[in-house]
């Protein structure tokens, strides 16, 4: 047995106080009587032989005090199965990012592993254990087994993931497995998630082994990169948002670097439970951008952020349009940007070196072999259209995670005119949806057509008068679309841990993936086309004959970075050096102990009103 709140055991000094009080009362609190002449017949108590002779009242008071102290200390029964009727047990180990937090006694996950090993070792010989690792999703890492050595090996080989905790599916899985078993099953949950933060239906009747006390953590909770879309200065401005999740002031430094060269360092003091925003400008790309915190607290995974500063390059656009207004608008935008040039697209040979082809009111039989933007396309083989033109089309739906809508609130779009609905081709997906006569029509379609990106803009921009920049929203959408179409991001992406990537979105055939730990990711099996990002760092996707695609996975989860736990569930003493283990939470003992303390004190009060027998 151990204690959830062993600090309360310090109240044991009150026992000494009780003894001292008894001795003091005996010596100091004399009772006056009219005369001792009748007490002289009573044998005098021998007090010198035994200095302290507690009576029944003392023992009752002591028992009441002990029950009260034990209740405050919150005793936990260890999960030994020796005396239990259960012969099956499921261990659920939380392997989320916060379990990497460094406590005085070690990392939370290491403490949990040690506790799991102790549970296994202390069980009776015929107990079968199952081990479930809980991170983004539950994984049964060891089916029911009585082989202690292999179980312990499995537990010790477990590693944390740089993802947020998602405990409830693991608990549901464990409960379902327990219900399917023929024999009673005990479920032990080893986590830093407070018991009370989990729904009662999941945690009911489970042994809860909480870990974690420190809240000392500083995290990069966000990085915003912006650059002018027009003008000659395209150098990005980076905002790094740092949050102090601790309860005390935190002194740290924040460095940003490009391709390993430190560009700036900020020394700062973060106020408790507050955010600070740091702005860095003058960063010159292209290159790998990295922000890192020094002295970032107990959790290290949220101290780094990787991104990429794209190159500023001259964009050559080939336009195929018979509409002079569209060409004029494009040329004005090109002049304003300073990084764009517009030329005539000549199908069948001209403009092969351009970066983007814009086809206006064109029936497309085959898309060009380069990034292509189709504006109000006519019905063609590759892009079938309907031929009808609609006005006053309202935007009703959108994919807000698409780069073309970055920085845009689609609700601000005006109604579109000159919309030529198209049938969404197989390579595209609808980014912006409008409503025409009660039916939805795609306004913007984007996707990968062959080896290049392509997009369809259903509204006729020439008729719409979009490009004369009378609408910032429309202009931003257009420029975003150009950026997305011409991005060199196929070989580099920035993602967040916890997400996954459909490898079909990668143009090349991925044959090998190396995760940030330098290990190959198993691409066999059913999920081979989905690559989960479980670790922060750089993923390398290798394809035969091509340069590897780099994916920068950053850990970003404010809830997970908030590693502090409420005092009621944080067992600081258990995590201090020299502490043995944490303990299972039954959550039932303290109320019984409090009740016992009350009953004992009532008994003491009743006994105090009676004269005891000789003893």
């Amino acid at each position, binding site marked *: 047995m151990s204690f959830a709140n062993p600090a309360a055991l310090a109240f044991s000094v009150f026992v000494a106080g009780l003894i001292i009080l008894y001795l003091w009362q005996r010596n100091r609190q*004399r*009772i*006056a009587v009219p005369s*001792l002449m009748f007490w002289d*017949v009573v044998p005098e108590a021998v007090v010198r032989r035994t200095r302290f002779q507690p009576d029944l*009242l003392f023992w009752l008071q002591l028992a009441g005090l002990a029950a009260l102290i034990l209740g405050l200390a919150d005793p936990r029964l260890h999960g030994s199965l020796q005396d239990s009727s259960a012969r099956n047990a499921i261990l659920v180990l939380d392997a989320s990012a916060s379990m990497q937090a460094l406590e005085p006694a070690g990392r939370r996950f290491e403490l949990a592993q040690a506790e799991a090993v102790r549970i296994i070792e202390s069980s009776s010989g015929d107990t079968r254990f199952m081990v479930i690792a809980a991170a983004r999703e539950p994984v049964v890492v060891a089916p029911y087994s009585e082989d202690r050595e292999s179980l312990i090996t499995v537990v010790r080989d477990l590693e944390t993931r740089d993802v947020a905790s998602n405990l409830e599916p693991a608990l549901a899985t464990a409960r379902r497995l327990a219900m399917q078993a023929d024999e009673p099953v005990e479920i032990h949950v080893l986590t830093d998630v407070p018991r009370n933060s989990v729904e009662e239906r999941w945690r009911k009747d489970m042994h809860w082994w909480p870990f974690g006390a420190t809240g000392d953590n500083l995290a990069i909770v966000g990085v915003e990169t912006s650059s002018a879309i027009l003008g000659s200065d395209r150098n990005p401005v980076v905002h790094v948002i740092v949050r102090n999740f601790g309860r005390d002031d935190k002194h740290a430094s924040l460095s940003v670097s490009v391709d390993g060269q430190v560009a700036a360092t900020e020394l700062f003091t973060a106020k408790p439970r507050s955010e600070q925003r740091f702005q860095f400008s003058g960063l010159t790309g292209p290159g790998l951008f990295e922000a890192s915190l020094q002295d970032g607290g107990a959790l290290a995974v949220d101290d780094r952020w990787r991104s990429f500063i794209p190159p500023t390059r001259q964009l050559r656009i080939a336009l195929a349009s018979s509409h002079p207004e569209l060409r004029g608008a494009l040329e004005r935008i090109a002049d304003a940007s300073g990084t764009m040039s517009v030329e005539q697209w000549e199908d069948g040979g001209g403009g092969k070196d351009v970066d983007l082809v814009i086809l206006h009111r064109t029936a497309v039989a085959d898309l060009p072999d380069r990034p292509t933007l189709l504006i109000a396309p006519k019905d063609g083989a590759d892009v079938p259209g309907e031929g009808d033109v609609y006005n006053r089309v309202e935007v009703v739906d959108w994919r807000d995670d698409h780069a073309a809508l970055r920085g845009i609130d689609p609700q601000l779009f005006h109604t579109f005119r000159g919309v030529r609905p198209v049938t969404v081709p197989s390579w595209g997906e609808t980014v912006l949806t409008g409503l025409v006569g009660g039916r939805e029509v795609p306004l913007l379609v984007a996707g990968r057509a062959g080896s290049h990106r392509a997009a369809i803009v259903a509204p006729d921009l020439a008729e719409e008068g979009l490009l004369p920049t009378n609408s910032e929203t429309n202009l931003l959408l257009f420029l975003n679309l150009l950026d997305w179409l011409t991005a060199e991001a196929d070989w580099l992406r920035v993602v967040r841990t916890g997400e996954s990537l459909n490898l079909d979105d990668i143009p090349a055939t991925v044959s090998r993936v190396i995760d940030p730990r330098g290990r190959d990711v198993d691409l066999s099996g059913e999920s081979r086309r989905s690559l989960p990002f479980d670790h922060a760092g750089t993923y390398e996707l290798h394809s035969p004959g091509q340069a590897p695609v780099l994916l920068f996975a950053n850990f970003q989860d404010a809830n997970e970075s908030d590693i502090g736990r409420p005092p009621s569930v944080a067992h600081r003493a258990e995590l201090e050096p020299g502490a043995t283990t944490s303990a299972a939470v039954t959550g039932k003992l303290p109320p019984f102990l409090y009740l016992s303390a009350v009953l004992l004190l009532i008994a003491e009060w009743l006994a105090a009103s009676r004269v005891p027998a*000789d003893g």
Partner: protein
Amino acid sequence: MRIHVRRGTTLHPGNNPVSSATQDSGLEFSKQRPYVPGDDLRHIDWIALARQDTTLVKTFRAEREAPLHILVDHSASMAVPPEDEKPYAAVAIATCLAYVSLRNRDPVRVATMDQLGTQQIAPLLRHPNRLQMVVDGITARPPSGTTDLERGIDGYLRLTRLPGIAIVISDFFVPAENYQRALRRLQAGGYAVAAIRVLGRQDRDPTLRTGRLRLYDVETGRDRIIDLTLQNRARYLRALEDHNEVLSGWCAANAIPVCVVDTSQPPSVAMIDRLPRAGILR
């Protein structure tokens, strides 16, 4: 209701005046005796002289008062334990007895006996209106000092030479020889003596606390550490009972009515039941 002490010496209070050999003048005719020279000529029985030609002198006996002396133990033991309120019970009984006596035209003298010796409350009270003086006099000072009935009574006997009925109100928490000597001195002084023992609930059944106790005598300051158990409680009660029996037996043998008054009961119980039953009132 009157105070009645069945066996006195020569005095009966109230309507039972007692003649005195030393008093030959008064209002009530006593007897005749032959005239001797020097007798007061006003006392010559002229009728007897005329009829019998014998010179006789009429003698008279006086209607003497039978004062009530109330001696209240005012030692520290009377105030312990406070919840027993023995001093107040003693005051109540003393006041009631004084009232009865005054109503029967017998004067009352009240005195307290404490560490300062015998304190006479008033010279001699003759009217019920003075009863408040009794109450104020007794309660003027808290009980203190040791109980020494013999010394207190000796002191009182020196203060007054007017025998009557002496009622001693005390808890009698003294050795038997002490109160026996004291009461004998009163009897020897010509007093009709009665004793009223005042005991509180705690005196009769100590429920101080359980377990080990350090008791100390409020009068002597002596300590004693005891374990208050059922057996020891029984020992205490047996000792108290023995003491009561010795007091009762000795008083009965010496014609001293004695009464034990429980302070937990109202004074009316003592006046209506206990004291008449003991023969002190009727």
